[in-house]
């Protein structure tokens, strides 16, 4: 019996359990009277169905995870396995190939020796598969019988099902914690391995970044100084992008909330929000294809030295445009949160609208705006595709926006794509960079949310 078939049988048994239990409960109710029974017939049905299917399904899930090891064990007992080479790599390649052919994922063998192992694999898989299916069906019958025996007028099937539902809901929300723990755990674990090869201080303060040379065996000293990466990230994400996004975003928000007619606002606001919805890979392509060459020709025309076709400015400008809607919507919210009385108070003194905005509304909304900018910065420094496609790979410590710089995210992509061996300092460095990025964006977010929250409270 194949896995899918077993699954189907278990679910079908559950459905049968549902029908039987419901019929039984209905009959019971007819005898005992509606008010004498605690739960509805369908609730009894669900109770039985769950008892039938759930334990069997859980068993199948566990079984599916342990069988590969059991199968492998029994295959290695087979006579054909005695001929396997001792060398770990070829050995596992042959075994893997045999397994793939046995399961039908692969049609023909690259290594003839694996053909000899296909039959043992098939036999073992059939053996353990059949055993699992049998056990699952027995479990399903046992669970169903037990539950069916409990169907009584006074039995609180509803409360039990609801309890299960509650556990399900709680379980779903715990996934968030598990994910967070997974992120922190994997980043920390891999970073620790990295820091056992490279001194953390060298990593955080070193000025030279050349993981390629480390990979080629020149040693890890001096190769993993991440400061040029940090600088590139800040230069593009926190400086150039913000120089674009803050004035444009803020002024757009001011115009749309304070000046524009409702009709204009109704259309322009979603239009600007489209900027946030364009995939970053599109921005990246646009930056690399259109903006960067234009900037380089411009730099060449006015004689700026060191102009590169992958410039910090191109990536930063385009990223700034991407960030405009974030700044604008945060500014919008913050300005809207300033009480109308404040605006009236200023207008009533004879201030013009722009004086009111510049001298009262924006100063009053400043904490909210600052919070929004911090969120935008955290978004910008974690952005990957634009910098991967437009910023370049040269780890330069430069103030020239026309030169090429590299960023944390660019290097993470660079280190982890292509051939990886998973324990070299080069690949592990990506996790260390990820850890730094994670911590910094987390801090920025916490600070930003604090600031915004405090500001909201001030006007409530």
């Amino acid at each position, binding site marked *: 019996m194949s896995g899918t078939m077993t699954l189907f049988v278990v679910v079908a048994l559950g459905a049968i359990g549902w029908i039987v239990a419901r019929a039984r409960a209905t009959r019971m109710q007819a005898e005992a009277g509606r008010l004498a029974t605690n739960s509805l017939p369908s609730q009894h049905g669900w109770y039985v169905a769950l008892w039938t299917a759930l334990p069997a399904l859980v068993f199948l899930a566990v079984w599916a995870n342990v069988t590969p090891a059991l199968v492998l064990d029994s295959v290695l007992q087979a006579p054909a396995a005695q001929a396997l080479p001792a060398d770990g790599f070829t050995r596992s390649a042959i075994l893997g190939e045999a397994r793939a052919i046995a399961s039908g994922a692969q049609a023909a063998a690259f290594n003839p020796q694996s053909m000899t192992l296909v039959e043992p694999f098939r036999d073992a898989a059939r053996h353990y598969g059949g055993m699992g299916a049998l056990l699952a069906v027995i479990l399903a019958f046992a669970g169903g019988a037990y539950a069916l025996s409990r169907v009584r007028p006074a039995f609180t099937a509803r409360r039990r099902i609801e309890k299960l539902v509650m556990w399900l809901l709680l379980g779903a929300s715990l996934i968030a914690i598990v994910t967070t723990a997974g992120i922190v755990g*994997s980043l920390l674990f891999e970073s620790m391995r990295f820091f056992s090869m490279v001194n953390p201080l060298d990593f955080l303060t070193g000025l030279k970044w050349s993981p390629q040379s480390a990979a080629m065996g020149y040693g890890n000293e001096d190769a993993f100084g991440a400061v040029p990466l940090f600088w590139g990230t800040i230069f593009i994400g926190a400086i150039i992008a913000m120089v674009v996004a803050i004035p444009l975003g803020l002024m757009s928000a001011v115009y749309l909330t304070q000046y524009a007619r409702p009709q204009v606002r109704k259309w322009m606001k979603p*239009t600007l929000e489209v900027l946030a*919805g364009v995939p970053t890979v599109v921005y990246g*392509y646009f930056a690399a294809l259109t903006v960067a060459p234009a900037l380089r020709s411009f730099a060449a025309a006015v004689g700026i030295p060191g102009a590169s076709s992958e410039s910090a400015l191109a990536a930063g400008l385009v990223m700034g445009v991407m960030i405009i809607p974030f700044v604008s919507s945060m500014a919008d919210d913050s300005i809207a949160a300033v009480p109308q009385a404040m605006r009236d108070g200023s207008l009533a003194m004879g201030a013009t609208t722009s004086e009111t905005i510049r001298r009262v509304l924006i100063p009053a909304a400043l904490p909210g705006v600052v919070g929004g900018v911090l969120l935008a910065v955290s978004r910008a420094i974690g952005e990957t595709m634009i910098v991967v496609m437009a910023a370049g790979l040269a780890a330069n410590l430069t103030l020239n926006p026309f030169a090429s710089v590299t960023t944390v995210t660019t290097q993470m992509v660079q280190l982890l794509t292509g051939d990886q061996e998973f324990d070299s300092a080069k690949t592990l460095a990506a996790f260390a960079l990820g850890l730094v990025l994670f911590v910094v964006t987390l801090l920025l977010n916490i600070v930003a949310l604090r600031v915004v929250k405090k500001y909201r409270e001030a006007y409530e």
Partner: protein
Amino acid sequence: MTGQAALTPHGATPGAAPAPRIAAPTDWRGEAMRRRIARRYAAERRFRLMGLAAVLLSAGFLAFLLVTMVGNGARGFTRTQIALPIDFQRSAILIDPALLTGGNAEQALAGANLPAVIDKAAETAFGENGARMISPAAQTAVRKAIIADPAILTGTATITVPASEGIDVAAKGQGSAANEAAVARLQQAGALSTGLNLRFLTASDGTDPTLVGIWGALKGSLLTMAVTLALSFPVGVFAALYLEEYAPRNRWTDLIEVSINNLAAVPSIIFGLLGLAIFLNLMHLPRSAPLVGGMTLALMTMPVIVIAGRNAIKAVPPSIRDAALGIGASPVQVVFHHVLPLALPGILTGTIIGMARALGETAPLLMIGMRAFVASPPHGVMDPASVLPVQIFLWSDEVGHGFIEKTSAAIIVLLAFLLTMNSIAIYLRNKFEKKW
């Protein structure tokens, strides 16, 4: 009471009984004041203009981006074709005509030496460079023509085949001088035409820009999104229900909330690292598969759905819960019979927006190995696959004009999907938005 005091500005002792004005009323009609007001109004106009300029600049950038993409990409949907006369009788085609009548005609032709035949025909028709004017995709066109009418094998037939990248780009006005000249010759011969590039919508990645299509990546995206939706929607909705309806106020609940809010702000590439470390290195799931991509993106999308879901659930007025509780519904029934149906439009809106974000996401997928060259569409979630944004990224690295227009065309397809999804979200929001 103090009328005369009004005439003595800056005068009386403050606080004394006949309280004065602090100064005489301002002379608003004076020349200086009038000039000042004019200046203030000018500043007002300037400020307003700056605001307008900011809005227009932002919108203008969007327009510029879209126009560039559409301008480059529209050509990706068309192709240049060449009418190629092939003398099948004289070319030594290695095929048994009997095979062509059965269902295995495709396979039989795939084994025939069609590429050589085509190259030969092109050289005969257009000179020694002829073979280089024809796309490798010409094979398919010739194959189709033969299957449609096996009789042509006994004579000469003129078959319309796609032109090579060089000719295609030159015909669209951006080629090299040599290719421009070739195009001019072909045009004179009347062999050149423009047709719809259907192959772009049905093929997968390839090595030649005239061969490539987005179907493989599109199917990969759809599979990935299916996995993402199947995982993140139930988990997101359940978590939102729990937090909004049942969660007790305690440290654990706070921890869950903090986690969700932080996850929503974690850079997407970090999720890629998580997927790499857990799904690939720990659980040994296949690299580059929609399953892993979908799981990674689901973790990223889940917080978005939770946050949108909580807002939608919060918007359901307590009176409805009270009414249901009042007629004896259990807390679970209240939520699943009343609150959830009422909150569903809001949850769906949030889900679509989250899915749109996931559909455009590239960086985490690069981390889990989804940057491979995949030349056939995936058949299931375990097969190696590409997705649209990654395909765009891969093509953007290729040089040559042929790939530029294909990249932009793929971007148009991606944007069309995103636009549709967002329009549906906006429509849902407007249609079901209730004011309680």
